[in-house]
C-alpha cells in the first residue's frame, strides 16, 4: 500500500511539474506582444551573447564528436550490415540512424552538459546575489531579458549544431565506408541525397526544436527556482540536467514510435 501511495504521489508531482514547466514556457513566450519592439536592443544583446556561448563556442566539441562518432558508428555499422545484407543497405541505414537518432540526440546531450547546467548555475547565482530584483523594479521583465533570449538561443543552437553534427558524421561515415568497401563515393552521395525527403527534414527540424525548447526551458526554470541559499544552485543544476536528459529521451521515444 505504501508503495502505491508513493507511486501515486510521484505521478501527481510529475504532472504538476510538467504543468509548471509548460506555464513557465508560455509565460516567457507571451512577452512577444504587438506593442513591444521586436528587436529590443537590451534583449538582442543578451540573445547574441547567449548564441555565442551556447552555439558558436560549442562548434569545436561538436566537430570533434561528429568525427569520432561518425567513424566509430560507421565502422560498427559497416561490419554488421555487410555481414548480414552485403553493402547494399549501408547508406540507407547510416543515414536513418544519423539523421533521425544520433545527430539530434548526441547534440542534445552535449547541449544539456554544456548549456543546461551553465544556464541553471548562471541564473541561480544571479538570483541568489539579488541582481534580478533591482532590474524588475526598473521595469525590466525577467522573462523578456533573462529567459526568452536563453531559450531562443538554445533552440537555434540545437537545430544548427544538430544539422552540422549530422552532416559531418555522415560525411565521415560515408568516407569510411567508401574506403573499406570500395563503394563509389559519387553513388553513395547520390543515394544519401535521395533519402533526404522533405518529410524527414521536417521531422528532423521539429525534433531539434523540441529538444532545444526542453533544454532551454528546463535550465531557466530550475535556475530561477533557486530562492535564497547557495546550496540550492547545485541542487537545481543537477535536477535540470537529469530532467532534461529524461525529457530528451521521452521525446525521442515518441519520435521513434511515430516514425516506425
Amino acid at each position: 500500500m505504501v508503495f502505491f501511495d508513493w507511486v501515486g504521489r510521484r505521478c501527481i508531482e510529475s504532472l504538476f511539474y510538467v504543468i509548471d514547466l509548460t506555464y513557465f514556457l508560455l509565460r516567457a513566450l507571451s512577452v512577444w506582444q504587438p506593442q513591444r519592439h521586436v528587436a529590443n536592443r537590451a534583449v538582442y544583446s543578451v540573445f547574441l551573447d547567449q548564441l555565442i556561448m551556447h552555439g558558436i563556442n560549442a562548434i569545436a566539441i561538436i566537430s570533434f564528436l561528429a568525427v569520432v562518432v561518425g567513424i566509430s558508428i560507421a565502422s560498427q555499422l559497416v561490419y554488421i550490415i555487410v555481414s548480414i545484407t552485403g553493402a547494399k543497405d549501408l547508406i540507407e541505414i547510416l543515414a536513418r540512424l544519423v539523421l533521425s537518432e544520433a545527430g539530434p540526440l548526441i547534440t542534445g546531450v552535449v547541449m544539456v552538459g554544456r548549456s543546461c547546467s551553465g544556464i541553471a548555475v548562471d541564473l541561480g547565482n544571479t538570483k541568489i546575489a539579488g541582481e534580478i530584483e533591482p532590474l524588475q523594479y526598473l521595469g525590466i521583465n525577467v522573462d523578456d531579458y533573462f529567459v526568452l533570449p536563453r531559450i531562443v538561443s538554445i533552440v537555434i543552437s540545437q537545430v544548427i549544431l544538430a544539422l552540422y553534427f549530422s552532416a559531418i558524421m555522415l560525411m565521415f561515415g560515408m568516407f569510411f565506408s567508401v574506403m573499406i568497401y570500395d563503394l563509389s563515393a559519387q553513388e553513395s552521395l547520390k543515394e544519401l541525397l535521395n533519402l533526404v525527403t522533405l518529410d524527414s527534414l521536417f521531422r528532423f527540424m521539429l525534433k531539434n526544436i523540441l529538444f532545444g525548447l526542453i533544454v532551454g526551458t528546463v535550465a531557466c526554470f530550475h535556475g530561477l527556482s533557486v530562492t535564497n541559499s547557495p546550496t540550492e544552485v547545485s541542487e537545481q543544476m543537477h535536477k535540470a540536467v537529469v530532467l532534461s536528459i529524461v525529457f530528451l529521451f521521452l521525446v525521442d521515444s515518441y519520435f521513434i514510435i511515430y516514425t516506425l
Partner: protein
Amino acid sequence: MSNSTVKTLVAADEAIPSSTEKHLSFPVLSCQLQDSELTCLVGPHRSQLRAYLLMLAGISKPVQGKVEVLGQQVCQLDQAAWQKFRSQIGYLSGTSPLLSAQHALMNVMLPLLYHVNLSFRETADKARTLLAELDCHFEATMFPAQLNSYQRAQLALARALILDPSLLIMDVPFNDLGAKERHKMAELLGKYKSSRAVCMIGGLQYPRFLQQHANQIIFISEQKVLIFKGWKAFVESEDAEVQILLSVF
C-alpha cells in the same frame, strides 16, 4: 516654494503595505512625496520600512487604503503599462548588486536600451556623459566585481538615473560605504535631489545628510507612524520610540 507650485508625485491615503513579515504589525500611512523633496523612512524594523518603501514606489500593492504614484493607481495597471510606469521611477539599492555578467557601461545602459529605442552608440554616449557627471574615475569596461564599494554605488546611482526618473527610490544607499565615501555619496544624492522626488530608507547611518537634505522624515514603528518636517523636528521629538531610535545611532 509655495504649496500651489509643489507637485505631488506620490500620495498614500490610509495605506497598509503587503508584506511577508507576519510577525510585524503595519500601521496605516498617509503621506505625500513631493517634487524636489527628500523623504526618509526611519524606524526600528528594516523589513517593515522596506515594505512601506516598496508600496510608495508602486512596486507592491497596498492591502488597505490607496496609493497613487505619478498620478496612477498601481493596482489598475496591466503588464505593459506597469513596465512603462516603472521606467519613470529610478531604483537604487545599496544591498542588491549590479549585474555581474555585464560591464559597468552596459549596466548603466541597460534600462535605456530596454525602454527607449535608441541606438547602441547614442545609449553609450548618454551613459558615458552620466558617468562623467557622477565623477566616475574608472574604466567603463570594468566589471562590478573589479570595482570598490563606492564605485559600485556610483554605478547603481547612474543606472537609477539614466532614464531621468521623476521619482528616485533608494534602499539603504549608504550601505557598505566608509565615512569618506558616505560623504561623497551624500553630495551626489543632494545634487540629484533637486529635480525629482526622492524617497529613501537607511539615512540614519549618516545623520548629516538628513540634516542637510531631508524635507520629510517618516518614523514608522509597529504602533505608529509619525511625520516630521525635517531633521530638526525629528530630533526634537519627545516621542519615546523616536528617542530610543536616535540613541542607537
